[in-house]
């Protein structure tokens, strides 16, 4: 039987017509004047996959995230997204209205600093309900019910629903930010260092929560982090960036346990073990 195997038979093509990716980045580059933000980044992301973009500060990971999420216009390259109607569109060919609609319905964006992702003077319930109202929900009881449900899912007590995020701890704010993003059932969530700045125990709780939500809801996620432990815990795949380019990409556990490039080896070797 062994003799019958040939490499060509063993090859299974990736993106097929029946199984298109959710998001495809092709040659995405962004320059700040002469300086490289990110350069020639290409990858595909399928439904249910969590991709971690790791690297040191200045490696271009946040610039890349900005391009992927439509917040920054790439200098070159294309970001295609499979919309809910299954049509694949270059997100930079969408009108701004379409792109913003996409961003507040089918996407989520979790910021490192919750102040950028929440309305600090609005109650927790209002923060969670905003997206629902934005897409035309006009029933107060239904909006509030949905907000309560989501606060429960992110482990915020129901009696905090009318409190403002100003009165919340850092971990609670991040969880509220997640609830606010997920209430419209997005298929793709972008996260920019969602756990940095939190205490280790709070970080673990948030990661665990994220992991559960991602798998329960079959979410796709692109998470930027400098923390390899975070990447290991939450992501399936990883891209290692340095000086704006991807130096290594693959399965998260493979890169962490058997890094190939000099830089990835250095990163992995630099992690402190408790």
């Amino acid at each position, binding site marked *: 039987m062994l003799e019958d195997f040939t490499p060509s038979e063993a090859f299974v093509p990736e993106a097929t017509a029946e199984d298109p990716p959710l998001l495809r980045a092709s040659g995405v580059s962004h320059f700040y004047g002469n300086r490289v933000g990110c350069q020639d980044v290409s990858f595909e992301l399928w439904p249910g996959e969590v991709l971690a973009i790791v690297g040191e500060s200045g490696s271009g990971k946040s610039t890349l995230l900005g391009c992927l999420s439509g917040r920054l216009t790439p200098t070159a390259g294309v970001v295609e997204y499979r919309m809910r109607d299954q049509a694949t569109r270059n997100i930079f060919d969408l009108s*701004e*209205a379409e792109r*913003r609609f996409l961003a*507040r319905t089918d996407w989520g964006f979790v910021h490192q600093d919750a102040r950028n992702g929440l*309305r600090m*003077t*609005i*109650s927790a*319930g*209002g923060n969670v*309900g*905003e*997206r629902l*109202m*934005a*897409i035309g929900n*006009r*029933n*107060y*009881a239904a*909006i*509030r019910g949905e907000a309560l449900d989501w606060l429960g899912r992110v482990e915020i007590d129901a009696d905090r*629903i*009318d409190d403002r995020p100003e009165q919340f701890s850092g971990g609670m704010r991040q969880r509220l930010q997640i609830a606010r993003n997920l209430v419209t059932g997005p298929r793709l969530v972008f996260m920019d260092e969602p756990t940095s700045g939190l205490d280790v125990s709070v970080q673990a709780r948030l990661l665990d929560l994220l992991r559960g939500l991602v798998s329960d809801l079959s979410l796709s996620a692109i998470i930027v982090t400098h923390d390899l432990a975070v990447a290991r815990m939450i992501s399936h795949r990883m891209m290692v960036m340095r000086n704006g380019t991807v130096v290594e990409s693959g399965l998260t556990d493979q890169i962490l346990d058997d890094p190939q490039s000099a830089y990835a080896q250095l990163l992995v070797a630099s992690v402190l073990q408790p």
Partner: protein
Amino acid sequence: MTTSAVEATPYNFAYLDEQTKRMIRRAILKGIAIPGYQVPFASREMPMPYGWGTGGVQITAAIIGPDDVLKVIDQGADDTTNAVAIRGFFARTAGVATTTQTGEASIIQTRHRIPEQPLQSDQVLVFQVPIPEPLRFLEPRETETRKMHALEEYGIMHVKLYEDIARHGHIATTYAYPVLVDGRYVMDPSPIPKFDNPKLHQSDALLLFGAGREQRIYAIPPHTDVVSLDFEDYPFEVQTFDEPCAICGTRGTYLDEIITDDKGGRMFVCSDTDFCERQVARNQGVQNQSSAAASEKTEMTDA
């Protein structure tokens, strides 16, 4: 409109120079063409402080002609300092006739009220607006609010109402209650009581709004749909009053609370002073008529 200056003052007709008036008229026309859209304009320094109606005064100055009859009200009253001053300003700089009677005016400049008496198609109501941007409460960035208007991203307007219900059990916004104009732009109707909101809908009169400090003009042309924002289960409602007006006895008007002494004494009276006075006059007229009728009867009996 005439360009002849009023003899009594060294100013151009209605104070503003003609180029400025043309600029303002263009903004007004654009506002009428795009109901509810805030048109930026180059607001001029006026001989009064901001917050005293510089936006409304500039609109009035741009549209007033020598044959117009001007009424100015402040919170419904014709006799407050602000209303008297603005009336005097135009009487002096434009030489126009002024009135306190709603039915006689061709232009009514108002701060925070719409008259009780329904307006006619040949009348223009000019609102003084302090903060024209209804989204400002939640979004401090002007660039962002403009984009939100452009893209009809009005979710946060309902967030504001949601917050009201969450905190007070009902929509506690009682004035400057946001409206959707012609199914397109969310608009701040200026700080009129929400009692007056229904009068904006399908109004016979042209409604113009001017914000001097914020340099914005917007408009609701006659017969435009104007809907107050609400929730299905918390529908928009206007204020109601248990008592009739303590002066004229009318029910169903918007009442102001008047403190009458320092022992907790108070009364509720019509905020629209012109309306209230005419009701009083009519009531007296009815009384006079009935007493006159009674005396006639007596005479007849005598005869």
